[in-house]
């Protein structure tokens, strides 16, 4: 994909960072519906880009969001941020 792929990675990095912040916000506000929706969205993008571990984390948070218990999800926030940075770095290394 070349140029397009680099552009796509940029889109993923900025959009997904927004989603990670939104997940953080939802946990802070105890908004289970928002938590479920944002983690579902991030999960889809991760699946599409092959970030399987990050997608699995998102799926776990989505499942907790569906159960309505935002507190239980909080302990996943740090691993989420950590994994996101790792994915971003890995994708950057693929850019031409």
């Amino acid at each position, binding site marked *: 994909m070349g140029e397009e792929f680099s552009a*796509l990675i940029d889109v*993923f990095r900025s959009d997904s960072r927004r989603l990670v912040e939104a997940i953080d916000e939802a946990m802070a506000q105890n908004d289970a519906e928002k938590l479920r*929706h944002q983690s579902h*969205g991030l*999960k*889809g*993008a991760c*699946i*599409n*880009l092959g970030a399987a571990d990050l997608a699995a984390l998102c799926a776990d948070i989505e499942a907790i969001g569906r159960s309505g218990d935002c507190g239980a999800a909080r302990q996943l926030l740090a691993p989420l941020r950590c994994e996101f940075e790792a994915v971003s770095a890995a994708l950057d290394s693929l850019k031409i």
Partner: protein
Amino acid sequence: MALVSEPIRVLVADDNRTDRTLLSRIVAREGHRVIEAIDGVDAIEKFHAERPQIVLLDALMPRLDGFEVARRIREVPGDTFVPIIFLTSLTEADELARCLLAGGDDFMSKPYNSVILRAKITALERMRQLHVTMQQQRDEIARYNERLLREQQAAKDIFDSVAHSGCLAARNIRHLISPLAVFNGDVVLAARNPAGSMYVLLGDFTGHGLTASIGAMPLAEIFYGMTQKGFLLGDVLRECNRKLKDILPVGYFCCATMVDFNFQKGTVEVWSGGLPDAYITRRDGGGPAVPVVSRHLPLGVVSSSRFDASTEVFELADGDRLLMCTDGLLESRNDAGEMFGSDRMIAILDRGCAADAFEALKEAAYAHMGEQLREDDLTMVEVTMLDEREIDAPMPTYVASGQIGPRDWSLSFELGPSSLQEFNPLPLLQHVLMEVPALRVRGGVIFTVLSELYTNALDHGVMGLSSVVKSTANGFTDYYRRRVEALSALVDGYVRFEFTSRASDSGGYLKIRVRDSGPGFDVSILQAARAKLTGAYHGRGLSLLYQLCDSLTFHGVGNDVEAEFRWGGDGPA
């Protein structure tokens, strides 16, 4: 794999920017035009504004989710089919099924695969094009069908106005023709001739549909044209047979019964070819129904030279009726498959209540058929003998082709034995006379006089038949039999017409002189009889002549008679 040949417009609706961008790029690389929507509401707006041909729809979106978007797209009125592919990271079977139930045509799971996507777009585009073709064909069929129905209705209107027409509304005619019938091939025609008789023809063309009805057009034209001009029953039938034989394909013909109701003489002359027996029913207490049997082949079967136009004559009293039907009535079946049959018909007719027979027969037929009702084949006609003054059907009118006609002319026309046997000169002579504008208004009267003068000259003059026979029981029937015999044996004799006419702007006259080769008769007896108003010479014909002509004179020994018509102020010189 076959690529979609034409680029199409594809709507990509996904709130997730990464997924949307990725998918848009894949679709664009296939050569299609991409329309992006960032949520459900945006998707609906772009759908209406950009008319995409395929929609790729994320299931979970803010403001309006994919399921609702799909539902609203499906609700857009019109025939256009727009395939919807759901995009989903859902993996549970019932979630995927929900995409299809919501109106999706397919779904695609993440991660997106460009090969799979291309295949799905190709497949759905093929389905869309199939749908477009189907719509076009459906519209074409609908248009074709509509045109067919319109044409059929127009054709039926023409058919009805031709095939069920004339003076069928006259008070002495009752008829049943199903209004549901589209071209059942049954024809009912009725008209009066210039002498005041009523001709009625019931015909049943073989087959159904357009083929069956097409022959009705020339049949009706000949029937009305020749009846109005004063041709005899046999002449009309011969011409109908010739025409139908010419135009109908082999195996197609017209079963028919044609009758001439002569109200003056109280007779009905019948020709029947191929239809079931007609019946004469006597007015109350007048005895059992008399069958009138078909003695000929249907019209359109044999060539003119082999056509037999011989007729039978029956005497009818006022109130007696003739009932004709096509085989549809007799062959109508009940639930058990049993035919109505002539026995049932005769049983009803023999109840001895002629006035009610028609309705009774109709009701019995309907009752017989019950659920099997096939109204399209029930055709019946009943004609009643009445006093001529009670007949309300109009006489033929002579349309003036112009006010200019011959003003000073004479015509001599003599028929020898062969002509007398085979040729009816009356329509020809009537045609000549109707060229005179002043005579057209009296066309019926003149035809009656012409035909009485001719019958007297031929029957009583040339052939020497005695009219006394007519006044006995079965007199007319007997008389007609003798007349046929005498005519076929005729070897010499003549009837000569001489017409003289003068016309000016203020008036004019017509003299018709008819001379025959017969021995004449004692005119003085006639004159005495007239003075006493007795029935000598079976006066009907002669007294009618005295009534209708402005003057009537016998010359010589009585085989030479002169009738005169005058109009305006001018008398003969």
